[in-house]
């Protein structure tokens, strides 16, 4: 699905060659500062490589319109972005931004359930805790139903138990609907438990595949 060749980005990343398979669970692991986030930002075309190429489904990223790509390959940042307004507003904003049809309330509640968040849709979003915000942002991305999920430490603010439940549901969802999941995680345990494919980055280089 993604094919990276001879990629260089500043002094942060230097990747000779890697293929990220379609419809599978890929985990990116490595120490902080090793370049994991930079890698998925590149896949979301939020930044462009200085050298080398990234192909998505055989097409150069430079040939794909950035906005169109991001609507298919949606990224969730580590620090969740919460917009002013209600839980409903926050769930719908992804669909609004990507100009997709809005979801009905039952669908929104369904998404909240997927991430174990029991909140009313009319509740204001600014009083949520860090972990709740993270799950809200994850539910927003799920609703967008993209081809590829790029998740940057989606469970960093969650306790271990919730983390495992949610990642399990997420993986199941991807398997059922033929989605690709690329997830940065600090947890080797999560990676070993769920990943079909593991990329380990050390000082900007891929060490172990």
């Amino acid at each position, binding site marked *: 699905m993604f094919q990276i060749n001879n990629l260089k980005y500043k002094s942060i990343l230097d990747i000779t060659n890697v293929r990220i398979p379609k419809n599978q669970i890929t985990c990116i692991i490595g120490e902080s500062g090793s370049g994991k986030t930079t890698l998925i930002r590149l896949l*979301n*075309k*939020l*930044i*462009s490589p200085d050298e080398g190429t990234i192909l998505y489904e055989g097409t150069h990223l*430079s040939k794909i*319109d*950035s*906005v*169109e790509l*991001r*609507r298919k390959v*949606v*990224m*969730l*940042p580590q*620090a*969740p*972005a919460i*917009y002013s307004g209600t839980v409903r507003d926050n769930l719908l*904003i*992804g669909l*609004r*931004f*990507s*100009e997709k049809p809005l979801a009905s309330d039952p669908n929104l509640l369904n998404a909240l359930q997927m991430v174990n968040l029991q909140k009313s849709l009319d509740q204001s979003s600014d009083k949520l805790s860090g972990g709740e915000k993270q799950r809200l942002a994850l539910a*927003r*991305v799920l609703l*967008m139903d993209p081809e590829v999920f*790029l998740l940057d430490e989606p469970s960093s603010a969650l306790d271990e138990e919730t983390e495992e439940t949610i990642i399990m549901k997420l993986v199941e969802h991807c398997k059922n609907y033929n989605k690709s999941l690329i997830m940065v995680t600090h947890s080797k345990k999560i990676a070993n438990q769920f990943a079909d494919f593991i990329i380990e980055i050390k000082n900007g280089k891929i060490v172990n595949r």
Partner: protein
Amino acid sequence: MDQVIQLQMWQMLSAYIFILLLLFIVRLKGIPREKEILIATVRMSLQLVATGYVLVYLFDNINPFYTILTIAIMEIFAIFNIFKRMKFKLNQKLKKTIALSMLIGTMTSLLYFLLVVIGLRPWYDPRYFVPIAGMIIGNSMTGIALGVSKLVDGMKDQRHLVESSLMLGATPKAAAGDIVNNAFDSAILPTINSMVGMGIVFLPGMMTGQILSGISPITAIEYQIAIMLGIVGSVALTVILFVQLGYRTFFNHEQQLVLDEE
């Protein structure tokens, strides 16, 4: 019509007693502002004296070229004043956007106001052209300066939110939408507020000047209403041009957020 009272030299000088009063107060209170007060007073006096003579010359030698030259100098001063007022360094692209928005916004409003609303003949008559240009350019300058600082601060402070919106497939326009609206709103709000207080809280300068010079208050308010509308229009046009073009300078052709690193 009554003639305006001509000020004698000693009367002019007696007005400076207010500055002496101010200097006395700051000295008494130990506020170290004497230097600024003196500089400001001297600058104000010299600049106005010079302007007075320039205007006399312009009115005596009516010529479209002189009028255009005067307006050009006013625009340039206004644009550089905006650059100078910013707490942060503006990049080249943003500077160009500011200059372009000021030129198009103020010139369109000014020409419409003079030629259509006032029906000025000849079109370059400096007695109308120069003071009205001053009001329109000056107010637009204040408005756009507010808009620039709100837009730049907004993009910097909300960088994370803007980028997160892009990650969700937002167009740059949608991702910066709230910041753009907020900048526009803050930039036109002072102008709208000044309309609300007008005539009750204070009598605007142009109207006061016309009344002092013996013109009927009714004529004076006609002019004041018209110029106020012209100012609102010019501020709105200048600021909307700026914010609509300005937010684009924060994105590159690949719809990526680019903020200058400090």
